[in-house]
């Protein structure tokens, strides 16, 4: 029941279940899996049940209900919630309670969704395994010895574990799509500016975007419908009308659609054979649905990762300057006397608060970004990366003048064992090989379940579309899911 938002809505409208019963079931499952999966950083059963009760009351009173009435939704702990802590899975914000809701959270409340809690993530969304969290690893429901991916690992694991039908993640370089792929669920990174970033704690402002996660394209489209739209509080939000996404899901007929397959990506060193085969097999599915498959190349794709790993840390180094212990967040109280002496109490407080509050990966990126923006280096790194970013966008423009969608892998491999890459940042960064392009170009991209490998781990494919063409992704994605059952596969740990 908790693996379909549409079903949860129907159960209530038919009178077969109340929002309280559904929320109770979700909370039971969350609590039951928290020990093994650790998907959440914060839950509050009482608060959740009282919210659900309010929805039931509305229904009894015959008041109008929002489009997600009584649907349990998990929220990544990088999105501000006024009634729950918002930690970014960092010791720096361990006790931080924002005085306001993120716009997407406001929209969930307006839609009468039940926000069940905050999900675990890599610290400040920096990572691809949820291992940099200050609240411990999240484990993959398909194999608890493996990572769920990251940074939205909690957000995808809680769906895969069957605790909630929908969850909100954020994607800066693949942080929705890669863990969606690792956990066998569907996840969308919308067009940059499609969803307001107000209240999303920034990692890299020009790349960050909030997006929906669920089992099916239908559910993901339903959640995007609720959170998308222009908002004046975010200057980078796009003032374009939000189309009716469900209307795009009515047909499986892909005749006339041209899909470009990124074959080069499949030949890159380190791409798993099963990943490769899954992409090739999906191309056949699309062909069967009537699409024309065309080989296409993005010539500057080898610069994606280097470009991303200059721009994202540069912006992060600036965005994270505010965590200095002066106004909120962690403040060091016991200053090392020699530091206090040599730096003075103010600078010593800054240094020690940040040294204690941030984990290793966050510090690494702050240092890289600070370096890349420094006088004498900015031209070599940051400004050079901006130029590369323009070329990367140009590649996409050229590709989309020939095809409607791009098809390729999400990650080079399926979920890897916990601990395997956590001490090897470069290996970890290569997880982003196929996902950062969409962030650099600001275009939408979706991760779709595409079967299992020999060890039973989920495989995934990625579709990318031109800016604001989420509808196209949903259209092709829904057709794919109509012709395959991959999105109906469930892990053994799944809570029915």
């Amino acid at each position, binding site marked *: 029941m908790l693996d379909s938002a549409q079903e949860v809505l129907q159960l209530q409208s038919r009178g077969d279940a109340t929002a309280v019963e559904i929320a109770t079931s979700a909370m039971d499952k969350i609590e039951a899996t928290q020990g093994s999966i650790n998907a959440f950083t914060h839950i509050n059963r009482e608060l959740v049940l009282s919210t659900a009760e309010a929805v039931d009351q509305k229904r009894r009173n015959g008041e109008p209900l929002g489009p997600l009435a009584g649907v349990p939704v998990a929220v990544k702990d990088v999105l501000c919630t006024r009634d729950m802590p918002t930690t970014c899975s960092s010791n720096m914000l361990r006790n931080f309670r924002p005085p306001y809701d993120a716009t997407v959270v406001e929209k969930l409340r307006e839609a009468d969704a039940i926000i069940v809690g905050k999900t675990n993530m890599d610290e400040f969304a920096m990572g691809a395994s949820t291992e940099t969290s200050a609240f411990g690893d999240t484990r993959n429901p398909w194999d608890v010895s493996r990572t769920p991916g990251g940074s939205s690992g909690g957000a995808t694991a809680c769906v895969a574990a069957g605790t909630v039908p929908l969850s909100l993640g954020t994607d800066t370089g693949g942080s929705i799509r890669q863990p969606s792929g690792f956990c066998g669920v569907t996840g969308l990174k919308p067009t940059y500016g499609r969803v307001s970033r107000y209240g999303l704690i920034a990692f890299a402002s020009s790349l960050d975007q909030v997006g929906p996660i669920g089992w099916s394209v239908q559910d993901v489209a339903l959640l995007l419908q609720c959170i998308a739209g222009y908002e004046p509080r975010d*200057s980078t939000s796009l003032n374009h009308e939000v189309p009716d996404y469900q209307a795009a899901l009515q047909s499986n007929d892909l005749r006339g659609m041209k899909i470009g397959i990124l074959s080069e990506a499949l030949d890159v060193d380190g791409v798993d054979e099963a990943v490769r085969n899954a992409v090739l097999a999906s191309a056949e599915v699309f062909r069967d649905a009537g699409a024309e498959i065309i080989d296409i190349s993005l010539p500057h794709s080898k610069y994606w990762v280097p470009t991303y790993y200059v721009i994202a840390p540069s912006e992060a180094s600036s965005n994270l300057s505010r965590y200095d212990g002066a106004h909120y967040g962690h403040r060091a109280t016991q200053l090392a006397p020699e530091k206090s002496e040599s730096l003075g109490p103010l600078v010593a407080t800054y240094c020690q608060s940040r040294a204690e509050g941030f984990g290793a990966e966050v510090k690494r990126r702050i240092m890289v970004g600070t370096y890349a*923006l420094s006088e004498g280096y900015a031209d070599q790194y940051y400004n050079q990366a901006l130029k590369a970013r323009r070329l990367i966008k140009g590649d996409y423009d050229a590709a989309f003048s020939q095809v409607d969608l791009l098809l390729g892998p999400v990650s080079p491999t399926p979920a890897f064992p916990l601990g395997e890459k956590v001490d090897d940042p470069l290996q970890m960064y290569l997880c982003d090989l196929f996902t950062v392009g969409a962030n650099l170009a600001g275009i939408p991209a979706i991760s779709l379940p595409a079967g299992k490998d020999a060890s039973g781990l989920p495989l995934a494919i990625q579709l990318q579309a031109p800016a604001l063409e989420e509808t196209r992704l949903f259209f092709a994605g829904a057709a794919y899911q109509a012709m395959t059952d991959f999105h109906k596969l469930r892990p053994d740990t799944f809570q029915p």
Partner: protein
Amino acid sequence: MTLSDGYPTETIIGLEVHVQLKTQTKLFCSCSTRFGAPPNTQICPVCLGLPGALPVMNERAIDLAIRAGLAIDCSIPPMTKWDRKQYFYPDLPKGYQISQFDLPICADGFLDITDEADPVKTRRIGIIRAHLEEDAGKSMHDEATGRSDSRIDLNRCGTPLLEIVSHPDLRSASEAKEFLAELKLRMTHLGVSDCEMQEGSLRVDANVNLHIDVDGKKVATPIAEIKNMNSFRAVEHAIEHEVDRQYDAWEETGKTIEDEAKTTRGWDDAKGKTFLQREKEESADYRYFPDPDLLPIRIPQQRVDEAKANLGELPAELCQRLQTQYGIKLYDANVIVKQGRELIEYFEEAATKSGDGKRTSSWIQQDVMRTLNETQANIGEFAVTAQQLGDLLQRVTRGDFDNARARDVFTHLLKTNDSVEDAIKSLGIEAVDSNEIEVLCRELLDANPQVIDDVKNGKQQAVGALIGQAKKKNANANPKQVRETLLQLIEQS
């Protein structure tokens, strides 16, 4: 200038002026910019830099910056953008200030000031650029508590500032003061800023050094940037002091600009001295980069043209016009222009109605401005309208009654809603016909025959006493008329 006992020197001054733009709300949030509110009461998640909060640009600040730029003959490039200037300080909650680095909103202007050597000429002072930025908060170091206790007030955080940077074209402390006075006049006149140094809505840093002519060879002293000056007078004194200090330091150490990096010096108003704040200007690396939370700003030429059209006259043009149109002196025109747009409009309306610019100007400078001062009132809410004042002064010029009687009417108008006509009636003012005056004058001369002798002996001022008596007998008697009648009668006698 030449120091009395030394080599000839030239003083080189460049100014960096921060002008607080007169917006209702802050640069990137809707908090009020009102001065003097209790600490930390005009704040929100955006100006506090809370996680997840995002800036949204205030269009009004862009309008004012364009207006300010046009007032100092800057060009307004078609594209400008926001950059982050990064440094850590407790009054800067985001850890960066949103500012403008390489594409400022205003570039390459000038301001003409009076040439000290030849006051009918002007000197052109170049403006390098003017850029927008948000203000930081205020750190208050409270030593009184005996603890090293610092408090932070973030009310000012995010207030829009325009930083105007001049070329080092100023050559004396008094020129610097003149430049600031002219800049303030334009900014206040155009409603861009209040420019109150005491309230911090105008802040000045002065970069000063000397070019010393040592037997035909130019030697430059190290540059000092002077801060913490809180009045125009302080700017002038600080620079004067700094000029002497630099000369003495050069004589003593021989250090030139080659030997010492720029230093920062504070101004101690009480001691009348500048003091060293930072030994070496640490070549701070602010790691500027474009703010990804804000879009670049495109300013179409049409917007600049409209701003130009709405700019109106600048103070100098206005003074010129007031002189020719209303026949007043430059000094008087200046006084009126400095009072701001509303008073200028009041003057023009009243002067047009009265048909007597000089009289109107002197009435406004005396009676009107004094009353405004006493009552702390604004001309916009003044009880005597420009039409009323004009009406009243027209009657004086026509000879209906004198200034003294007009002042009675003015006082009456201040307290009532009467028209000038009604005020005159209710005060019983009416023209006295010349027969009546003559009768009155004869009576007075009969009673005071010695006045006739005095006048005949050349002491014309003797009639003054009789004018006073005439006014006592008939308040409406026009002193000018009484005087003329008396002199006429004496001559005939």
